[in-house]
């Protein structure tokens, strides 16, 4: 009785296509599709919705061939990253629209609409015009409209990306509750995002998508701890994990005249040349460390992101405080080598601090 897709392929343009994607979504669960822009997230969601017809492959739902059912009979709901509502209708009419379409009686519609208005915190706004609402409120309306239908499949296509930082944080929290409270056990929720933190916080099953292919599927924590390869490592971290070409020589990891003692979990690596991976948060300032040059310093919230270079090596480090650096400043840093990852030359995970390995 699951939503099962097999070998879905669809070519929109050369750079935007789905390549043989398969999935198996179970009812009552939350799925997060994590991928960068143009990775095919929206295309996949639209294919599931029925707005796009795949070139090949199948989708089955509740045992039926889903592809034969037109969008308007699929009983799904979708929220877009743009705040899509019906501009000619007011808030109440917007939310009531799918119910009217279903031909429910007005009494019932009224009840349902007010329930979902309450759920998204927009009580008292029902008479407002859409244009009179703020962006966050508009998005709440479209979420309310998607919830009111009690759809079996709820698709959320980066619903928070166009909101400002604070609102995003707040809504993300609310959404989690809404999904938990507002949906029955019967529903499948699919949430797409580019933001790994969002994926982690939602804590559902994560599907990592890149260039139209599924790279890894697993629980959020698993993806974060044991990215299957370099690409996943890049996608599932913000800022992306630092990757350095390194070699192992006499129990040292060497690159750009830097030598680091090899940590235990990496000692099993056999290849001489490998990719050394370390998260930005696992690089720390240390006066005894190695000297790098500041290329760029950006302050984001309470963090400072430093883009550093040394020879051919480029790394990013995040520091949990606001610091003032100038371009070309010299800084000294250290690597928390016990948190380091190793990927082999083809990019697959060789060893992780959480025990994942290809060995």
């Amino acid at each position: 009785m699951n939503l099962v897709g097999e070998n879905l392929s669809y070519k929109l343009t050369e750079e935007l296509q789905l390549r043989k994607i398969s999935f198996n979504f179970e009812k009552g669960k939350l799925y997060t599709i994590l991928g960068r822009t143009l990775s095919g997230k929206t295309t996949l969601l639209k294919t599931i919705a029925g707005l796009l017809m795949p070139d090949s492959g199948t989708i089955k739902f509740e045992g039926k061939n889903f592809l034969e059912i037109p969008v308007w009979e699929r009983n799904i709901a979708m929220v877009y990253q743009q705040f899509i509502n019906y501009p000619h209708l007011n808030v109440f009419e917007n939310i009531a629209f799918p119910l009217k379409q279903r031909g429910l009686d007005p009494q019932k519609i009224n009840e349902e609409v007010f329930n979902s208005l309450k759920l998204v915190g927009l009580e008292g706004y029902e008479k407002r015009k859409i244009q009179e609402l703020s962006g966050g409120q508009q998005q709440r309306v479209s979420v309310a409209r998607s919830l009111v239908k009690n759809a079996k499949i709820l698709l959320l296509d980066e619903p928070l990306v166009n909101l400002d930082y604070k609102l995003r944080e707040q809504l993300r929290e609310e959404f989690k509750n809404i999904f938990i409270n507002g949906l029955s056990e019967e529903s499948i929720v699919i949430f797409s995002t580019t933001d790994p933190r969002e994926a982690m916080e939602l804590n559902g099953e994560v599907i990592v998508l890149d260039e139209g292919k599924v790279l890894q599927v697993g629980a959020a924590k698993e993806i974060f701890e044991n990215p299957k390869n370099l690409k996943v490592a890049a996608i599932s971290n913000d800022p992306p994990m630092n990757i350095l070409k390194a070699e192992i020589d006499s129990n040292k990891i060497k690159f750009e005249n830097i030598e680091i003692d090899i940590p235990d979990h990496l000692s099993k690596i056999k290849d001489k040349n490998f990719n050394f991976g370390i998260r930005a948060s696992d690089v720390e300032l240390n006066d005894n460390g190695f000297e790098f040059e500041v290329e760029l310093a950006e302050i984001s919230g309470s963090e400072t992101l430093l883009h550093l270079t040394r020879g051919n090596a480029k790394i990013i480090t995040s520091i949990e405080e606001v610091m003032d650096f100038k371009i070309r400043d010299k800084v000294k840093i250290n690597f928390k080598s016990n948190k380091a990852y190793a990927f082999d030359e083809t990019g697959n995970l060789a060893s992780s601090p959480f025990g994942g390995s290809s060995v």
Partner: protein
Amino acid sequence: MNFKHKYIFLFPGLFVLIGILIFPIIFVVRLSLSGWNSYNGLNFIGLENYIRLFTDDPRFWESFFRLSFLSVTTVVLQYVIGFALAHMVWKEIKFQRFFRVLFLIPMMTTPVIMTVIWRTFFHESLGPVNDILGNFGLSPKWLTDPTLAKFTVIIVEVWQWTPFMFLLLLAGLLSLPKEPFLAAAIDGASPVRKFIYVTFPLMAPISIGAIIIRLIEASKIMDTVYVLTSGGPGTSTETSSFYIFIKGLREFQMGYAASMSFTYLIIMIISLTVIAKVLTKLLLKD
């Protein structure tokens, strides 16, 4: 989206158009292969008309180049003035509604009738323009000087059709997103820079459409020429469509006029396609 419903949306309009036009278009092609005129019927003379057109009718080609000059000049002027006007009444201005309505009105006049008014307006001894200019010792030969007559035609065309550009560009301006302007304001961009780097690029797509459609319409320039100067003095204001009109309905050489029209159609389709491509390249950088 791709549903079979798409055909039900497209086809009624498309088929009505084709249904009404298929016979006329085929007939024009057939007509162009005939010597249909006041004394001949729909006979078949092969490519004779086309041979005459390409080897023995410099007047057609002269009128075509004249037309190109007139239509490009008028459309450029209409675009520049239309854009300027739209930009001026876009933001706060006194009597905004009045100006917006007023600037629309000229295009609502019927050219055959309005041009008669223009002819009296530019009448060199009974019209107001030279009467007023006469006080300054000027008496331009609006309609009888071969060069100036062209500009008189341009003036009338600009008067009539600048509103078309004005409306499209004003509509475009009013639908622009606000964000880029806020960004520019924060950067402290000067009004000129704001126009060059923000307004103009955002208006490029609508500009291309408007220019192309105006070129199509301006190339049919006919009533204006007919009433103002009948193509004169000499042949100095004769355009393709007016020449086709003379050959077709005045001299009744319908077969020949059809071959000219068909040739004109082909040339126009090719040049409009090229112009559209060039404009897209120039104005739409990405």
